[in-house]
């Protein structure tokens, strides 16, 4: 397998976590907590750190990358079946992110173009991406993440300086604790996508350092989302933010530099399409790679073309309208994350812990 450098691993992780969340999370947080949404973004750092430790533990106590790791710990039939379920999950996540993106462009830029054209064009680019192999994807992710992060930073700064009213964040207290828990949870579920480190961690220069990279990626995510939420709230206030379909995007429409650079939403979409490309290509790659391991195939690259039709059709049929899609995004997908990326890893962790104890107790006996 191609080796990837630590910075590439970092970019892959950030690229997987951030772009989608960037669009959907601020609105969700504002909906749940109104002007206090940003607090939840930052609070997520604490349980997020727990997740990092969890994944790191599993990573350090395994000998093989992810789908094989299941077989390693759970044994042949169970591991393989679970692995296959993960393949489906990753395919579903790919379709979901594609669909969310196309719905977004349909809503905001090109309302007349049929959704199938968007999805078709994107899938073409994605298949080419997977055919290029993971080493090249890692390099692409570096470019994407660097461009994206710079752009987001500049954007947030401009919005805060131009439109930000710090008073809109008041009052800071008076939180609804139930909603705070839900909001933090939502963030945590996004962070749980760090799960893919169980595959990528093995290919990076030094497995031991994967933990640090994960931590950095997690903190980057929290900062980006926290800052974005802050700036959206400062620009629109809680009420408006919570009724907007894509608040981050609407925030971009406010940017106006010297009365000349205005309405730059399309540039935002341009940069953001890179991010979506990153997410979709990584999840799809995970699906293909897992399938390769599960079915003992020769090369994951050929699976891409085969699953393309599946991904395309799923993403078209996934929901009939955007409200349904948003419910899917805000309720169903987090549950999936929670189950597959948090609960199963915890079980795995317990299993490894148990095994380790047993073997150590065995050793001590001997």
């Amino acid at each position: 397998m191609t080796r990837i450098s630590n910075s590439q691993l970092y970019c892959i992780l950030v690229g997987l976590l951030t772009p989608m969340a960037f669009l959907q999370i601020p609105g969700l947080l504002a909906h749940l907590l109104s002007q206090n949404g940003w607090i939840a973004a930052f609070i997520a750092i604490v349980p997020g750190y727990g997740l990092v430790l969890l994944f790191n533990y599993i990573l350090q106590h395994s000998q093989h990358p992810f789908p094989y790791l299941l077989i390693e710990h759970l044994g042949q039939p169970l591991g393989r079946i679970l692995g296959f379920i993960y393949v489906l999950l990753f395919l579903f996540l790919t379709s979901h992110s594609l669909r969310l993106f196309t719905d977004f462009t349909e809503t905001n830029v090109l309302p007349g173009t049929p959704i199938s054209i968007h999805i078709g064009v994107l899938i073409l680019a994605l298949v080419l991406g997977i055919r290029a192999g993971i080493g090249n994807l890692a390099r692409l992710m570096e470019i994407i993440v660097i461009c994206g992060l710079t752009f987001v930073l500049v954007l947030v700064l401009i919005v805060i300086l131009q439109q930000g009213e710090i008073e809109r964040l008041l009052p800071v207290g008076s939180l609804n604790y139930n909603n705070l828990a839900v909001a933090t949870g939502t963030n945590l579920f996004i962070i749980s996508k760090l799960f893919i480190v169980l595959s990528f961690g093995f290919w990076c220069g030094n497995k031991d350092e994967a933990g640090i990279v994960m931590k950095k990626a997690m903190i980057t995510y929290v900062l980006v989302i926290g800052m974005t939420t802050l700036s959206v709230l400062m620009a629109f206030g809680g009420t408006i933010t919570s009724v907007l379909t894509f608040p981050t995007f609407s925030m971009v429409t406010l940017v106006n530099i010297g009365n000349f650079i205005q309405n730059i939403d399309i540039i935002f979409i341009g940069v953001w399409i890179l991010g979506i490309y990153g997410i979709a290509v990584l999840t799809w790659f995970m699906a293909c790679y897992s399938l390769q391991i599960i079915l003992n195939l020769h090369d994951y690259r050929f699976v891409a073309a085969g699953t393309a039709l599946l991904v395309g059709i799923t993403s078209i049929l996934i929901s009939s309208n955007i409200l349904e899609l948003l419910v899917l995004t805000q309720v169903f997908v987090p549950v999936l994350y929670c189950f597959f990326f948090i609960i199963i890893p915890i079980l795995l962790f317990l299993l490894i812990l148990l095994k380790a104890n047993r073997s150590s107790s065995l050793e001590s006996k001997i």
Partner: protein
Amino acid sequence: MSKESIILLLFIMVLFIIGGCQTQELNESGVVAGLGIDLEEEELQVSMQMARPALPGQSSGSEPAFEVVSAKGRSLSEGLRKITLLFPRNPLVAQANLLVIGEELAKTDLALIADSILRNPSIRKNAVVVVAREVSPKDVLNTQVAMESLSATAIPRMLRNQERQMGIYQEVSLEEFLNKLARPGVDPTAPAVTLIDSINGKAIRLEGTAVFKGREMAGYLDSRESRGLRFLNPGRIQGGLINIPAPFEGPGRVGIEIIRSQTKVEAANTDGQIVMRITYIGEGNYYEQTGEADILRLENIPVLESICAEQIKSDMQACIKQAQKLKSDIFGWGNIVYSQHPAVWAELGPDWEEIFPGVKTEIKVEFELRRTYVTDQSLHYQ
């Protein structure tokens, strides 16, 4: 010089001398942008909108960029050629992309012009046909449209934009029009234009659809029926806005933008009775609402969809009712019966005119809402 080369030279010279007689230099001709035909005192009045050639930058300022000339003749060809009596340049009719038919002519007999139009090679068959309603074609051509130099190019564009935005009328080309006129089992329609007073003076407005029965005009469809006609035409269409009452009690209304839709029309033969089965599948976006009602919720979507479907269905029914009242098969159902059930058509064909008003329909409409634009909920005013 050899004999061959001398002969060749002579041949070329002869070609030059005799070959030029059919050429028309552009600067000796007038470009006709639009053509209007009406019946006046038993004679055909032909009006032409001539574009005034202008270089870019030499904007003509206040004077319009066209000139309308008209002449009368007993036949269309005569009328067309009589233009030369009062206009020094040779009119290039092939450039005309609009044909305005006067109401008078339409109500009398289209046969007066149909043959001539079909036969004349210089009349473009992809020109757009409209009927001038309650005004003369000459006035329509003489009216300036805001921001446009020529009304003849503005009207087709108006039809096109209006279809994507409002979704009421459909553009009808001359070829389509003549085709429907000639074929049994289908009657032609054409959108109608009229003149209104606007803030900028006189303006052309699309107003209804003219319905023909055979070679005569039978009446008009109003805008709702025209919308129904557009939904009823088989095939895919894009765009349109429909307005429905809010799903619950209250004064509010909801605007739904139709993104694209598809209509299938089938003729079913049950016990010798023809039933037209119309299936409409459409999708749209939530465009606006008025009032404070909390309409946009996931659980309300099916309700909204069914109201839209009802609305579309009732538009269709209104159109069918009017068409059947006018006894004009503008939907081409006769044609559909002919192509799907040739045997039945052989039997019914001759009496189709009597049968059509009684044809039953089964309309099935499926409508789905897709997106909601910038906000995903109804606003709560506090």
